[in-house]
């Protein structure tokens, strides 16, 4: 029998100390800081009115839809730089068949998701098969997809924009999935009891919450569940943490990574579907730099650039910070030119903070 003598180095770990080594901690703290900062500097400007909140949530939700699967991919140790171009490409894939070939919107949506998922699988296969860094492989796809988008669009339509999707989508069964609003009744009720302001014509200042927010929350929760509660999540951490060890234990590392590349591509297609159906048009330049914004949100969210550690909830906070800062700078009246300086600096600080938290997690117990 083994004696039940406990190690003298055992000490009970408090909940607080455990909390302090979570990857989301920095992003959650950063979110509070950013909210406090803008509450002081822009409190009276309407940033935190119902209208202002909807505005920054719109920015955050769209970025957050990308950031959740990008976080999983980065935890698995890979990058996908092609998501930005994929957004532009997917937008065109939705608009051109609908406008020029008379396809119903639902069909062109299904077509787009299928094609984008396929391209994501190709990205993944190329990375896994060649063993090249995904940074390089997807940098190639970034340029190829953007070129393909421009070439196809100009070849078919003669222009770089395709508009007129609104009218076609009006009665489409899938339209409200991407461009509708939810909780309109609740908003009206809140306006009636005076919690939300009303416009001069007596209608509430906002008519509902954009459905993109629902996608954002659902995707974040789904990715969090996948990461922490599913078998696949274990494989994601292992693929990014120590791929060789994972392979020796029978983890299908290649399949895990390819699946994640498909997921980021599908998220880009979802982003495009929302954008095209909300604005009613597609543009070949849509999604430019979104790949970097998603990486910034993920990194602010506590995910390590080297893989093996991170969280999808953190990425949600990262996207929220991104939206608040972008709209906050606009509302405070600071020249929006400064926005990128701010976000860039924030990311560098986040990276420093993350490596501190990671070291703490590796030491603290």
């Amino acid at each position, binding site marked *: 029998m083994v004696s039940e003598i406990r190690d003298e180095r055992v000490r009970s770990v408090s909940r607080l100390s455990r909390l302090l080594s979570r990857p989301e901690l920095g992003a959650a703290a950063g979110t509070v800081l950013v909210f406090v900062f803008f509450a002081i500097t822009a409190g009276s400007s309407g940033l935190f009115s119902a209208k202002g909140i909807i505005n920054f949530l719109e920015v955050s939700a769209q970025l957050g839809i990308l950031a959740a699967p990008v976080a999983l991919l980065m935890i698995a140790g890979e990058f996908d730089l092609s998501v930005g171009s994929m957004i532009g490409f997917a937008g065109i894939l939705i608009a051109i068949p609908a406008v020029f070939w008379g396809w119903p919107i639902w069909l062109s949506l299904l077509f787009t998701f299928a094609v984008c998922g396929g391209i994501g699988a190709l990205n993944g296969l190329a990375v896994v098969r060649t063993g090249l860094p995904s940074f390089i492989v997807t940098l190639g796809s970034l340029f190829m997809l953007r070129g393909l988008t421009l070439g196809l669009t100009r070849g078919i339509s003669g222009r770089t924009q395709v508009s007129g999707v609104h009218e076609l989508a009006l009665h489409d069964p899938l339209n409200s999935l991407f461009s509708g609003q939810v909780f309109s009744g609740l908003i009206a009720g809140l306006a009636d009891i005076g919690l939300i302001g009303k416009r001069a014509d007596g209608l509430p200042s906002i008519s509902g919450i954009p459905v993109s927010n629902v996608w954002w929350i659902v995707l974040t929760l789904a990715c969090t569940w996948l990461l922490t509660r599913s078998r696949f999540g274990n494989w994601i*951490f292992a693929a990014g*943490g120590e791929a060789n060890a994972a392979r020796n234990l*029978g983890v299908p590392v290649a399949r895990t990574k390819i699946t994640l590349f498909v997921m980021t591509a599908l998220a880009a297609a979802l982003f495009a579907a929302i954008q095209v159906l909300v604005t009613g048009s597609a543009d070949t330049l849509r999604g430019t730099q979104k790949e970097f914004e998603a990486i910034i949100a993920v990194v602010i969210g506590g995910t390590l650039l080297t893989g093996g550690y991170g969280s999808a909830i953190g990425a949600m906070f990262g996207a929220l910070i991104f939206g608040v800062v972008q709209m906050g700078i606009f509302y405070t009246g600071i020249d929006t030119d400064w926005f990128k300086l701010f976000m860039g600096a924030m990311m560098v600080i986040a990276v420093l903070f993350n490596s501190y938290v990671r070291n703490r997690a590796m030491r*603290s*117990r």
Partner: protein
Amino acid sequence: MAEPYVELKSVSKYFGSVVALKDVSFDVCPGEVHCLLGDNGAGKSTLIKTLSGVYTPDEGEIRVQGKPTRFASPADTRNSGIATVYQDLALVPLMSVARNFFLGREPMRKFGPISQFDADFANRTAYDEMSAMGIQLRDPEQPVGTLSGGERQCLAIARAVYFGAKVLILDEPTSALGVHQASVVLKLIVQSKARGIGVIFISHNVHHAYVVGDRFTLLKRGRSTGTYAKGEITRDQLLNLMAGGKELVDLEQELAKSARNGTAQG
């Protein structure tokens, strides 16, 4: 003597013109520690890889429980109860002990239509299996990176045993460790033996091997120089048999002589 669980009979392995193993026989019985000793380049790695199914022998045969067997792959070998614990231990430092324990073989629990990772079961089992090997974890959710070298070995060994290993092949488990941690690993080997597992302990450290070994096989330039039971050979004889053992004894005498000369002069 008990029947060997796994047995190599006159195995040879060639890589082109290089003779990596020539006519080597080796076996291990349940509840026995069989040490495989040899200097670098003696053929230890080739022998391990042949035993674990990475290489197929060019001549000779492998028997598992007396039956001639051909391993198709390392996974095939694992399924027949032979687990290899390599030096890198196949652990992911940033993941928790429990998640590492079950990596690739996650226990699932059904909640209606969805099944999810059974964290409670994983934590409990990892903790219990490691304390059965004599290591008390502070917390099964602590990252493997926070474990000491001996604790990591324990995790890798406990995992292999839990998943049905009858024979453990330990590749230089003490070589990268300090004195205290090495003794932790030697205790693990004794624990495994007590549980009826056959251990193949690969080392070039005779002192570590002699403490726990029941039998010793020496490899020299791809050939076996013989297998000795513990009663048949002393530690010094074993040291002398190993390549470098004789050189060390010579060096010792030479140094002693020059030291004597030094004091005589001074």
